[in-house]
C-alpha cells in the first residue's frame, strides 16, 4: 500500500454523511459526575469511590498499551473525548458526522458491586450526557446506561427516559453476573422491546468476577483485547439459546466493538449443533441463524482486516449488508477513520447502508 493509494478517496460519494454508532465522551475528572448524584451518593462516592470485581482500585488490571489516540488530546487540556468543541472540530465536523451515538462508559454503574450505588451512577451518567453533550450538540444522541444486575432499577431508568428522544438505545455491560440471555435480565428486555429501544452492548473494561476467557485470566493486554470478541460471542450465544428473541420478538441487539467476521462461522456452528441437541432447548421454535439474522446488528469498529481484502466483502455478505453499523470508537486508539476504513469494492448503495441507512433503520434519530 503506498501513499498514493491513500490519497485516492475511499468514497466516490464525498458528500456522504456518516452515522457513528460509538463515540466515547469522557469526563475531565471523575468528580464531574458529582453534581448529577444525590447528596447521599456524592458522599458515598467521595468516601468509597468505585467497588468493582478486581484487585486494583480504580485502575484496570490489564493496563492498556494505549487508551486513546494521542492526537485526540484537546489543546485546552483534559483527556481525549472530554472537550465538545474539540470533538466537533476533530471528529464531528471533520468526518461529516450526521448522528453520533454516545457510549458513556465511565462511570456507568454497570460493574458496581453496590447495586444501589450503581443504579444512582447510571442515572447520573444519563443526566450528564444530556447536560454536557446532547443538549449542547444536536448531532449527538445518548445511550441510557442501566445497571443490569439490579433489573428493577434498570427498568425504572428505562421507563424514565423512554420517551426522551435524546436517547436512542439502552446500554448495559455484556460482562454481567450471568450470561446476558438468562431470565433474570428479561424484565430489562421487556422494557426495551416495549419502548422500541435497541440494546447496545459495548465491551467493558471491568470484569464480572469470572475470568475474561473460558481458559482463565490472560496475562497480556494483547490477549485481553482478544477477549472482547469472546464476551460478545458469549452474549450472542446466550441471547439466542435462552430464547430471548423468541420471548421478545421486537427486541433489537447491537453488538459494539466486538467485530463481525466471527459471526457467520458461529451461526453455522449454532445451527449445526442445535440440530443435534435441540431437545435440550425446546423453547427455540426456529433455528439459531434465523434469530441472528433478524435481531442482531454489529458495529464495524475495529474493522476486520483479513489477509485478502476481498474476504472482508465475503464476511459482510455472509451476515448481510443490512447488519453493519459504522462506528469510529472516537477517541480510542483503535479508531477507524470513515474515509479510510472500507477500502474494498463495495457499491455506493452498500456504502450508504453501512455508513448511514442501516443505523437509521435501527435507531430512531431525529
Amino acid at each position, binding site marked *: *500500500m503506498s*501513499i498514493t493509494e491513500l490519497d485516492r478517496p475511499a468514497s466516490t460519494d464525498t458528500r456522504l454523511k456518516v452515522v457513528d454508532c460509538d463515540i466515547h465522551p469522557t469526563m475531565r475528572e471523575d468528580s464531574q459526575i458529582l453534581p448529577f448524584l444525590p447528596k447521599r451518593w456524592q458522599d458515598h462516592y467521595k468516601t468509597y469511590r468505585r467497588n468493582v470485581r478486581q484487585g486494583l482500585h480504580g485502575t484496570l488490571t490489564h493496563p492498556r*498499551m494505549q487508551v486513546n489516540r*494521542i*492526537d485526540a488530546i484537546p489543546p485546552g487540556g483534559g483527556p481525549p473525548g472530554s472537550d465538545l468543541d474539540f470533538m466537533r472540530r476533530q471528529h464531528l465536523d471533520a468526518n461529516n458526522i450526521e448522528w453520533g451515538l454516545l457510549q458513556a462508559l465511565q462511570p456507568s454503574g454497570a460493574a458496581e458491586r453496590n447495586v444501589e450505588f450503581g443504579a444512582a451512577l447510571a442515572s447520573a451518567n444519563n443526566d450528564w450526557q444530556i447536560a454536557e453533550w446532547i443538549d449542547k450538540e444536536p448531532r449527538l444522541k445518548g445511550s441510557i446506561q442501566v445497571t443490569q444486575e439490579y433489573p428493577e432499577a434498570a427498568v425504572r431508568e428505562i421507563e424514565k427516559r423512554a420517551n426522551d428522544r435524546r436517547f436512542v438505545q439502552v446500554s448495559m455491560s455484556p460482562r454481567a453476573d450471568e450470561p446476558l440471555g438468562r431470565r433474570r435480565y428479561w424484565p430489562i428486555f421487556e422494557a426495551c422491546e416495549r419502548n422500541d429501544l435497541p440494546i447496545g452492548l459495548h465491551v467493558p473494561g471491568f470484569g464480572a468476577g469470572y475470568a475474561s476467557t473460558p481458559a482463565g485470566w490472560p496475562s497480556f493486554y494483547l490477549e485481553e483485547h482478544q477477549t472482547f470478541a469472546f464476551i460478545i460471542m458469549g452474549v450472542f450465544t446466550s441471547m439466542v439459546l435462552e430464547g430471548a428473541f423468541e420471548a421478545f420478538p421486537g427486541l433489537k441487539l447491537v453488538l459494539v466493538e466486538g467485530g463481525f467476521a466471527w459471526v457467520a462461522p458461529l451461526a453455522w456452528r449454532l445451527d449445526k449443533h442445535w440440530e443435534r441437541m435441540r431437545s435440550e432447548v425446546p423453547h427455540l421454535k426456529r433455528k439459531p441463524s434465523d434469530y441472528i439474522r433478524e435481531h442482531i446488528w454489529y458495529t464495524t469498529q475495529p474493522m476486520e482486516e483479513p*489477509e485478502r481484502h476481498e474476504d472482508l466483502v465475503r464476511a459482510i455478505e455472509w451476515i448481510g449488508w443490512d447488519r453493519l453499523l459504522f462506528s469510529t470508537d472516537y477517541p480510542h*486508539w483503535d479508531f*477507524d*477513520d470513515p474515509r479510510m*476504513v472500507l477500502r474494498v469494492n463495495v457499491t455506493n448503495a452498500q456504502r450508504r447502508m453501512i455508513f448511514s441507512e442501516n443505523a437509521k433503520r435501527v435507531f430512531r434519530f431525529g
Partner: protein
Amino acid sequence: MAARHVVATVDEIAPGSAKVVTVAGREIGIFNLAGSFYALISKCPHEGASLCRGKIVNRVESDEPGRYRVVAGHEMIRCPWHGWQYDIRTGQSWCDPDNIALRHYAVTIEPGERIVKGPYVAEKIPVSVEASYVVVEV
C-alpha cells in the same frame, strides 16, 4: 520539482524529540536522533493518521519469553492511532510481512534480523542542516 524549505532551527528540536510542520501542503515530522536529523511524511500508510505526532520509542527485541531488550540506535515512531511502528531512520515498518499473498507464503527472517520487516514504508524526506537551520526537500 522538489523545493527546499527551512522548517526549524537546530536548537528547536531537542535530541529524542520531533517537530511536526506542514510544508507544501503535506505534514512532515522532523526528528532529532542523537544530533542527526531525519524527516518522514507524517501520514501512516495504514489508515492515514498523523504518524509523526506519535511517540518515539525504542526498538525492543527478545531472546526468549520474559526477556526484554531495548536496542539503541533504532528509534521508532509509533503511530498515534493503532500503534504501528516505523524505523525513523529508514521509514521501514516492523510489523507484518506481505499480507496479500495467501497460500504457502514463506515468512523469512533475514540473517541478523530478529523481527520480520513490514510491507509499508513511511516516506522519507531528504533533510540537511545548514548553519543552524534544518532544511527539508519536498
